[in-house]
């Protein structure tokens, strides 16, 4: 994607092996190795916005920690903006922004603006640039009235917006977001997403985000990487993930009156509730012919198409790779029926 062919973030065969010591008895300790990241390679071009997802303990955080220079990889080659993160941690720090969803970097007892002033001086941001960036963040993240409020008095959503602003004041070229919408209410989530979308579009900031909320990915990322057991199991467009996961879209139809389940080739009714029926059909197929047939053969009042929930898509994909897990597929069925 990048015009010069080389990625802005590049990982080549990155591994991270932890030595875990566990108490076994009073004094004896057992040692065993955990491969948190097991040979990951990918490349992200400047200006891309990539979702990095996977189950808990899959190695997401470990990867982010290696990308930000916190952890040293056990093997492989890693470059961010041409810098080896673990060797030149502080040099890299000036060029990246990191937001840890659950750990604020803001100063608890001080007004929000004080945290920004510290960033201003610690990163040696030129005064003019600092003012411009602060102004822009304050406007877009609606922080104006919060600047003089002690951080401890901010709501979770306000604090997250405050944290995102703090990570952007020094014009980072890459922004890592670890669970940026965790615990936020619907409105705060929407605000954060809108901001990130604009940031990526206007400032061309490369964004890599991990999340459990797959709506984040649906709304923000054209590219998704799925990691499981320390390995990259999918890297590509969101649409492709649906194909791999054989996911289904749902057509919700409102009929004039209660009728027996609609019978159409290429779709199956998964739920009936009074005059409303839910029809599942392959995500890759077009909804148009289905809609046309229903409209022609049934008394149709209204209809809508629902995109598949990525969580279920991933669960499906992972379960197909391993032994099928009935609990998961049940959950999938339930979700797609919603």
């Amino acid at each position, binding site marked *: 994607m990048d015009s010069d062919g080389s990625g802005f973030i590049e990982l080549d065969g990155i591994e991270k092996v*932890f030595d875990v010591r566990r108490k076994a008895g009073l004094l004896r300790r057992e040692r065993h190795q955990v491969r948190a990241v097991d040979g990951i390679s990918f490349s992200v*071009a400047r200006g891309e916005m990539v979702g990095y997802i996977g189950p808990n303990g899959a190695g997401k955080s470990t990867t982010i920690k290696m990308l930000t220079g916190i952890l*040293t990889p056990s093997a492989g080659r890693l470059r961010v903006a041409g810098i080896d993160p673990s060797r030149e941690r502080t040099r890299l720090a000036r060029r990246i922004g990191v937001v840890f969803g659950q750990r604020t970097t803001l100063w608890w007892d001080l007004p929000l603006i004080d945290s920004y002033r510290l960033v201003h001086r610690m990163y040696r941001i030129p005064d003019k640039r600092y003012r411009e960036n602060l102004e822009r963040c304050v406007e877009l993240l609606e922080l104006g009235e919060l600047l003089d409020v002690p951080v401890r008095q901010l709501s979770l959503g306000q604090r997250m917006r405050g944290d995102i602003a703090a990570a952007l004041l020094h014009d980072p070229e890459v922004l890592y977001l670890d669970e940026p919408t965790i615990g936020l209410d619907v409105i705060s989530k929407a605000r954060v997403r809108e901001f990130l979308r604009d940031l990526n579009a206007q400032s061309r900031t490369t964004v890599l985000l991990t999340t459990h909320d797959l709506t984040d990915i649906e709304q923000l990322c054209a590219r998704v990487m799925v990691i499981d057991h320390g390995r990259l199991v999918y890297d590509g467009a969101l649409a492709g993930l649906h194909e791999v996961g054989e996911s289904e879209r749902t057509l919700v139809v409102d009929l004039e009156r209660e009728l027996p389940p609609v019978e159409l080739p290429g779709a199956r009714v998964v739920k009936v509730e009074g005059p409303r029926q839910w029809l599942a059909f392959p995500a890759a197929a077009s909804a148009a012919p289905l809609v046309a047939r229903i409209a022609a053969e049934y008394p149709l009042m209204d209809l809508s198409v629902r995109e598949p929930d990525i969580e279920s898509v991933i669960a499906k994909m992972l379960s197909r790779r391993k032994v099928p897990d009935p609990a998961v597929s049940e959950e999938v069925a339930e979700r797609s029926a919603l």
Partner: protein
Amino acid sequence: MADGLSEGVSERVPKGVPPEGEWSRPPLWEGLRAYGLIIAMWIRSTMAYRASFAMTAFGNFAATAFDFVAILLMFSHVDRLGGYSLPEVAFLYGAAGAAFGLADLTFGSMDRLGRRVRDGTLDTLLVRPAPVLAQVAGDRFALRRLGRITQGLLVLGYALVTLDIAWTPLKVAMLPMMILSGAAIFASVFVAGGAFQFWALDAAEVQNSFTYGGTTLLQYPPTVFAKDLVRGVTFVVPLAFVNWIPALYVMDREDPLGLPDWAAFLPPVVAVGCCALAGLAWRVGLRAYRSTGS
């Protein structure tokens, strides 16, 4: 996301990048600067609760003052302690207290490192463009610890006006040197103790036994302790250089281990050595953390 990608993306000059020279600043200066910025933030945070600050500062002063009251009580029953008079013990006490207080003020937060490792907040320090040691040392900077320094200096002042010392320029110079070197030796113990917490998250207690325990030890004359213990704090963990050895020189007293007179001038050398070792331990510890992330 696709639009605009075609324009010369790779040619875009990263605007946040400072000129090359920016990165060649000496780490010591960068560390001091970051430390200054961080403690300024903590002082402001403390001042958000002025009344609480005043009370804890007074409490800190009072708690340490009781230490000395205990010594005063002892001297109400005896005239000499290990052959030392009250002003002489006060001299030892004040010097140790001031040196330790200074180290506690500047590096006393090192024992919070284990907690930061455990709850993962150390990572937020590692993504900032500043030395981690400076950030950890400045963490939760507590101005109330000035209470201990004040108390130490008051007791030292009392000793200086009561003691009959044959002052020479060297002895006068010995006073600030003793306190500064002593503070550096204690600070090294704090840093080494912090580094040890990368492996043993609860090592803060071990470190405290050397710092808080060490300072209590140094408040008494070396003659009241067993020779082996005195040897230990001279040659193994060189706390004796904080006050005992230089103070004995100032007071014209015989060194219990029979060290030569010039040993009194060693504290700065010992301090530099300790700082180097502590710095090394810190580097090793941080490297271990970054490779294990425990």
